[in-house]
């Protein structure tokens, strides 16, 4: 039926803990953790390997919330939106509470996606495979409307930064005709594939912060005004009261984005955050340390875990780079994933479900209880913490493509870019969102046009696409309304 024993739980726990460490270090990802441990699975049978690999996967996705909340540096690309509300909470002295809320939401997101994986794998896979380039393009545009929602009171600058990010993403080779564009002659070798996401991300968030702190003499307190001594709000599960619909909606968005093959995972938490803002009763609170925002981001990025397994197990298509490595694990054991996988290997299917369940709970316990210790990081003085951050960022940036020094230069370059953005009041998150989604936006735009001989009407020709158009319009109208309201009150 399925396999579980002490060995299974032990390797799952090891996987989860190592995964959390990888997730928590900016530049190290769940994908990297899986790639490192994949060779180890030669020694075990598939069931034990699955516990280890799924542990790494769940841990790696979840660990990103720790630096996102405590030091405003997203540990993984999908925890960008966690910084929006998590860090302001930590600054209010509620770091521990924010971490606990984040971890609990992660657990809910993970369990939700597990339920979806269990019940809906076959029908959902059938639906997602019907999505053409048009729907995928529109979903990316929909995710990008969060830029407008994020930059209220300063919308033109936010959108400008977003498109600047898209432009940066386009640097490098265009896959359709293999032509290099927007690259200076002397960097043609280094930039042949464009800038890597992780050095850009870490540079913008971590290194630019180092420069800002250096400018301010390393004196800024991460916790404002001695709030630690006073009574701060403690976490209780009641914090999540009233967030039930938010959790379900965000987990569902995360899971569904995971199911869509080829749409990057980071889009999930961005889209979920945008929707939470649209549906929120107090949208002006989001971005200032609202529980809602944190819950939405974390439940969505853990929703990915189960979602990305749906196309992997039902169609043999990986939903993201991490699950692509999981395919490797199956291949090592001589097992073919695809439409017949579940009927031919019911015991492995059950083990996957159980392992995912176990790993989600292990992740929760491994992070929830030692949190007091973890949150002490905020007490380390800046002048001691930042050199270590620089070291970790350099290691992460260098290792992401297995040893490219240009990635470390990219890290520094985008650190300077991020610092200058602060000076000319261009917001960084929209820029990064544009950068993350830019390549997909172009790919699906061109693919859709190619399929229609260049007629733009193709974007209005599909029923699901038209539903997404309505959602895009509503999202933009709401953002404009919200922007006006903020501008008036300011």
């Amino acid at each position: 039926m399925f396999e579980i024993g002490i060995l299974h739980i032990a390797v799952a726990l090891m996987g989860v803990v190592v995964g959390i460490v990888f997730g928590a270090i900016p530049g190290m990802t769940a994908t990297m953790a899986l790639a490192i441990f994949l060779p180890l699975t030669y020694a075990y049978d598939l069931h034990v390997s699955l516990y280890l690999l799924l542990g790494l996967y769940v841990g790696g996705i979840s660990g990103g919330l720790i630096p996102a909340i405590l030091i405003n540096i997203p540990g993984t690309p999908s925890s960008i939106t966690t910084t929006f509300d998590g860090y302001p909470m930590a600054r209010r002295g509620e770091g521990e509470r924010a971490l606990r809320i984040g971890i609990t939401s992660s657990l809910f997101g993970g369990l939700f996606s597990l339920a979806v994986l269990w019940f809906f794998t076959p029908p959902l896979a059938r639906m997602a495979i019907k999505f053409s380039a048009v729907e995928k393009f529109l979903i990316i545009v929909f995710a990008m409307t969060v830029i407008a929602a994020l930059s209220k009171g300063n919308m033109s600058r936010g959108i400008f930064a977003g498109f600047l990010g898209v432009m940066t993403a386009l640097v490098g080779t265009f896959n359709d005709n293999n032509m290099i564009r927007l690259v200076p002659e002397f960097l043609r070798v280094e930039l042949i594939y464009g800038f890597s996401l992780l050095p850009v991300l870490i540079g913008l968030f971590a290194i630019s912060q180092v420069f800002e702190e250096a400018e301010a003499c390393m004196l800024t307190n991460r916790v404002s005004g001695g709030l630690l001594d006073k009574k701060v709000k403690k976490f209780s599960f009641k914090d999540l009261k009233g967030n039930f619909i938010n959790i379900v909606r965000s987990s569902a968005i995360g899971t569904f984005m995971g199911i869509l093959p080829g749409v990057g995972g980071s889009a999930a938490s961005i889209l979920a955050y945008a929707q939470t803002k649209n549906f929120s009763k107090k949208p002006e609170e989001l971005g200032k340390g609202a529980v809602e925002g944190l819950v939405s981001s974390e439940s969505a990025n853990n929703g990915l875990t189960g979602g990305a397994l749906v196309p992997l197990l039902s169609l043999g298509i990986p939903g993201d780079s991490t699950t692509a490595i999981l395919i490797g694990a199956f291949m090592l054991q001589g097992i073919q994933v695809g439409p017949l996988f579940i009927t031919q290997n019911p015991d492995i299917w059950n083990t996957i479900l159980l392992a995912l369940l176990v790993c989600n709970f292990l992740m929760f316990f491994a992070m929830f209880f030692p949190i007091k210790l973890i949150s002490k990081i905020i007490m380390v003085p800046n002048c001691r913490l930042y050199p270590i951050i620089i070291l970790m960022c350099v290691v992460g940036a260098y290792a992401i493509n297995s040893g490219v020094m240009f990635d470390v230069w990219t890290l520094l370059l985008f650190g300077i870019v991020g610092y200058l953005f602060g000076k000319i009041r261009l917001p960084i998150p929209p820029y990064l969102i544009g950068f993350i989604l830019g390549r997909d936006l172009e790919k699906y735009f061109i693919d859709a046009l190619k399929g229609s001989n260049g007629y733009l009407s193709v974007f209005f020709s599909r029923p699901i696409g038209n539903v997404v158009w309505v959602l895009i319009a509503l999202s933009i109208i709401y953002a404009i309304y919200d922007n006006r309201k903020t501008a008036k009150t300011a």
Partner: protein
Amino acid sequence: MADLFKINITYSTSHMLFPKIVMGILAVLAITIVIQELKKKKECKADEKKCFFIEGFDKVKLFGSLILFVGYIFAMEWTSFLPASIVFMMLFNLLYAGWHSKKSIIVSAVISVFTPLLVWYLFGIVFNITLP
């Protein structure tokens, strides 16, 4: 009329199609921002002089960070991860925490020896990750 809503995709130039669209959008947005800024300036006049750096900014730390970072990358290219990191961790620590008290220097030295060693052992040796 239908041609108005048609984009011809030529294979050899298709790599510049989307960048051109984005550049167009950026140009429009840039003009909008400039007009908005000019309007704002008219409204509040130039009574407050804006400075690029924050008031009383720390020149040594800011430009020192930049120079050390560049030096760190070159050092890693010339030597290897461990010696470069130990030396530059020490320099970063001295720059940020100061070199006026003995205690502070000792703390800097301990951090700059142990952190790179730990990272090197854990990631370079145990996990076999490529380090500079």
